[in-house]
């Protein structure tokens, strides 16, 4: 079975541009969450989606948005990119969206560089 897949793997943008990152969860998983990981730090929670509804939101500005599609895949959008948005963006899928005992399966991430 395929694991969590993310695209693209690498992306270079300039300040002010917009970016869309994509994630396909493991088959049968209905929950997708997004994380930002700056080099040398732990993943920072951005969003969780379950059954196409937002279930959780981290402390990120409104420039960050996401959505989940009927097939449970997800997109993360970032508008008006800043240099500080340069990071590894990780997507994780899990079976349910309860938030309690949730085992997360991570994709390999999208490395975003903002110049």
């Amino acid at each position, binding site marked *: 079975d395929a694991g969590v897949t993310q695209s693209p793997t690498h992306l270079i943008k300039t300040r002010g541009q917009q970016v869309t990152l994509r994630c396909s969860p493991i088959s049968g998983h209905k929950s997708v969450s997004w994380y930002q990981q700056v080099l040398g730090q*732990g993943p920072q*929670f951005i969003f*969780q989606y379950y059954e196409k509804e937002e279930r959780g*939101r981290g402390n990120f500005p409104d420039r960050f948005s996401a959505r989940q599609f009927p097939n449970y895949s997800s997109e993360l959008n970032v508008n008006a990119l800043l240099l500080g948005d340069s990071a590894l963006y*990780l997507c994780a899928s899990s079976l349910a969206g309860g938030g309690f005992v949730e085992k*997360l399966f*991570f994709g390999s*991430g999208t490395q975003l560089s903002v110049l």
Partner: protein
Amino acid sequence: GQQVMQIPQYQHVQEGEDFTTYCNSSTTLSNIQWYKQRPGGHPVFLIQLVKSGEVKKQKRLTFQFGEAKKNSSLHITATQTTDVGTYFCSVNYGQNFVFGPGTRLSVLP
């Protein structure tokens, strides 16, 4: 916002030595998870702990949840070069997932 602390930030050990990382929260936790991230890789789930005082073992790895459910530890016995990576604890605060800053383990052969 809610935070979890991890110590130490870095640990360098000689192969064969033991290693321990600690995760601490100021609030009582419903559960805690541990992940390992190899250099250049993505976090991989290791274990989840739910019960107060719970101890779980995976070969050379021992995970413990504190009695007050505010702290946890991961202990590796007789480290190997394959243990190299960053170890993160992760907790749920409501619908939010919070990862600690991680402990980066280096193992010298």
